[in-house]
């Protein structure tokens, strides 16, 4: 991609994010009280991260079967409340092992 175009993209991304963080700190001095709005904002990260993870995780590796293996390992370990790093590395290891094994079949 052309560097200038990429730079414009990055600046728009950074500008939008900064405005969201800056405006309340500069303009307002009170907290949000509406239970609906608070709940809405509470659920957003979960909905967003889930939508970003599934189904894209199924083609995150070069082969479908390795992606499935990594996905399964990640779900099991995450449910067991393992740390971010443990879950991520175990999923990588699962992909690596399965992709190396496929070579033998």
């Amino acid at each position, binding site marked *: 991609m052309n560097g200038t175009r990429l730079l414009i993209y990055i600046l728009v991304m950074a500008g939008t*994010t900064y405005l969201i963080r800056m405006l309340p700190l500069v303009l307002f001095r009170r907290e949000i009280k509406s239970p609906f709005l608070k709940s809405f904002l509470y659920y957003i*990260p979960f909905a967003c991260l889930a939508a970003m993870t599934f189904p894209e995780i199924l083609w995150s590796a070069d082969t479908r079967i390795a992606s499935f293996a990594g996905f399964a390992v990640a779900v099991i370990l995450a449910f067991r409340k393992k740390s971010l790093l443990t879950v991520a590395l175990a999923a990588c290891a699962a992909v690596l092992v399965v992709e190396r094994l496929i070579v033998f079949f």
Partner: protein
Amino acid sequence: MKSTEKTNKRRADDFRQGARDGIPIALGYFAVSFAFGMAAARDGIGAFYSALTSFLCLSSAGQFAGMDVIVAGGSLIELALTQLVINLRYLLMSFSLSAKLSPKTGIAPRLVMAHGVTDEIFAISAARQDLTPYYTWGAMSVAVPGWTAGALTGGILGDILPAFLLSAFGIAIYGMFLAIILPPAREDRAVLLVVLAAGAMRALFTWTPVLDRVSGGFAIIIVTVTVSGIAAFLHPHAEDASQENGEVSS
């Protein structure tokens, strides 16, 4: 004169404490951002640009979704909207921090502090008894370099490592996302339903004819707003949402 000295010492102490509390955050950031740099390298984005993005945006989910839009050649409007929706929770956090600050706090310290409103820095700032911007600045002074250096390192290694290793690392970020959303989903049924519904709806956007023509960024926006909106309507979250938000997400 004496009171100015006292103020300066208070500021320095706050800054130092913030920096100390920021160290574990910086380490975690390095790992997540490393995965970001690597994923960006796979998509053909150079290490310099991933590091710049990380330094300027300081948001995990937002950056990943943004890179998806950029790589797919989406419009600037789509990009800005994705950021607005995904990072909307920072609005709530900034409101909450603003209410905690002394009303006498000037505009300039607020402007600098605003950049550091992330889930984790918000969490430690909100837990502070007497919050000053200097505490948050201290946390930023280690967390921002950690986040930036992670993207740079991941980006450089992403260019060097052989393809089979990169294929394995591609799943890392999704693993981290799952590690963020699944533990709370186990405790809170509403969160579990939100996670399942969002995944199912995104799958619908991926595999249904017509719907699959909606670009990735917009699909994420539609899914996020719809699912969170319905969940908030049916099941308002009882506790202080802003506090918990800071602990569960990255």
